[in-house]
């Protein structure tokens, strides 16, 4: 079983189900990518593993423990980090304060973790005293990811980390994400840029209408003519 896995998840925000028997998971040091057309429930599936919606059926396992009924905050304490797609930084606070707030649950010294984040994203060290709201889109995403890393999570959930950034910045962000995975953190992310994302993915999930359509390694999905034709534009 994977390190983090949402098994046979069925549920939604209200009475109507968005997810139908959907399973996604990721292992330590791996990058798992969820792709699919608009409205396929990609983000919903990821949020479900983070406890942001009620599951009618199925369960979420984390490190061998059933966390289906934990609140998102409690999952953060367990070692999950989540980067929302939008509104993912404290705009009025400086970069450094953003990182400090990321580490709010920790009572120990956070200086070394902050150094690690600065090593990963050198630009943030340069801009550490600037309000996050004044940064460019790509830099903001770095702050957002950095903030989530401050708790030293074992799993990092990224909701479209490259939304709204230029292709160059996107490549740069993907490189950083690979680097984070190499440190042994499990990364589960939702991506619109399916091709590029599957290129770096160890595992790929193609969702359609809230259900698994294809599940394979990133490489295999890229090679699969059906997937290419329907979801990757040929």
């Amino acid at each position, binding site marked *: 079983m994977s390190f983090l896995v949402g098994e046979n998840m069925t549920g939604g925000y209200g009475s109507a189900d968005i997810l139908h028997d959907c399973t996604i998971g990721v292992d330590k040091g791996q990058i798992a990518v969820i792709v699919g057309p608009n409205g396929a429930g990609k983000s919903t599936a990821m949020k479900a593993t983070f406890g942001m919606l009620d599951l009618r059926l199925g369960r979420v396992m984390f490190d061998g423990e059933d966390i289906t009924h934990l609140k*998102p*905050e409690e999952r953060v304490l367990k070692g999950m980090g989540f980067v929302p797609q939008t509104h*993912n930084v404290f705009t009025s*606070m400086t970069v450094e*304060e953003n990182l400090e707030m990321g580490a709010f649950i920790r009572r120990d010294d956070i200086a070394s973790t902050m150094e690690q984040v600065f090593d990963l994203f050198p630009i943030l060290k340069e801009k550490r005293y600037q309000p996050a709201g004044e940064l460019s889109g790509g830099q903001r995403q770095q702050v957002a990811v950095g903030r989530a890393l401050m*708790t030293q999570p074992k799993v990092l959930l990224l909701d479209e980390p490259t939304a709204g950034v230029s292709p160059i910045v996107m490549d740069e962000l993907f490189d950083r994400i690979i680097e984070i995975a190499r440190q042994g953190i499990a990364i589960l992310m939702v991506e619109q840029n399916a091709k590029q994302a599957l290129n770096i993915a160890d595992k790929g999930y193609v969702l359609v209408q809230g259900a698994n359509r294809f599940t394979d390694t990133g490489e295999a999905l890229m090679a699969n003519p059906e997937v290419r034709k329907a979801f990757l534009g040929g």
Partner: protein
Amino acid sequence: MADVLNALVLLANFLIVPGLTYGSQLALGALGVTLIYSVLRFSNFGHGEIMSFGTMFTIFFTWLFQGWGLSIKPLPTALLALPFGILATMALVMIMDKTVYRYHRENKSSNVIFLIVSIGTMFVIGGIVRFAIGPADQIFFDGTRFIMKAREFKQMTGLSEGLAIKTTQGITIVTAVIVVAFIWWFLNKTRTGKSMRAYSDNENLALLSGIDPARVVMVAWLLVAALAAIAGTLYGLDKSFKPFTYMQLLLPIFAAAIVGGVGNPLGAIAGGYVVALSEIAVTFAYKRVVGYLVAEEHAPETLLQLLSTDYKIAVSFIILVIVLVIKPTGLFSGKTL
């Protein structure tokens, strides 16, 4: 030269010193309104009455201490009683939050409902105050009246205009500076303060970061209670305590908060001074000031007063309207802390 100095002293005595005093009182009040707005996201119309409640308890303790013969002359006994007034106010807001606001937070009531609820608390607290201490004027200032008397100033400088600084004016300004510095330090340097700013900036992300909303809300209320009790007591010391005037204070306080940019502490402070100084500036008679500055034959015959002092309260309204029309976010672009 002496004429210019005389004109300046005249302005300082009747406009600047009272303006800074009143401005400090408004700034502390507006700071409380702004804190509630940015953390709990509603305009607290009960703030004036919370100030009144805090002042009332300060007065009760002042009387008690006076009865015991306690005194810290030349400072007023009320300063000794103020910490107890603050504690009583903190108890009040905690009870109020538990019994009234928490329910609406849990039910995620809309801002309008919060606002109307706060009007309800205004009437209830106002009623309690009037019931407990009565609607009459209370003067609870004791101690030395002046830091500097007009006559002493004249003797010292040889000018024909005097500058008087009342003890209460000095206390108000010094206290305001200390309190504002403390609030700034708290919000920018402490873990709890930063978590309040984070919560105010982005509630969901604050939750994801493990910030406990209940704690943030409680700390906000406690700060606001302290600010309200201090602002109310300073105002009461400087003028007098009359429950009804505290309800009227609500308008200039809100004007100050909005002028500065709601939710922005820096703006609240600046707004307080803007409102106070303009209230006094447009109702001030400039006849004698101009008299010093121009040749005798040009001396004005009229009072040179823009508005009669009866219209004082209208000034806050006018400023409010101007700001809302020209720059609705206020001078310091508010919204978050």
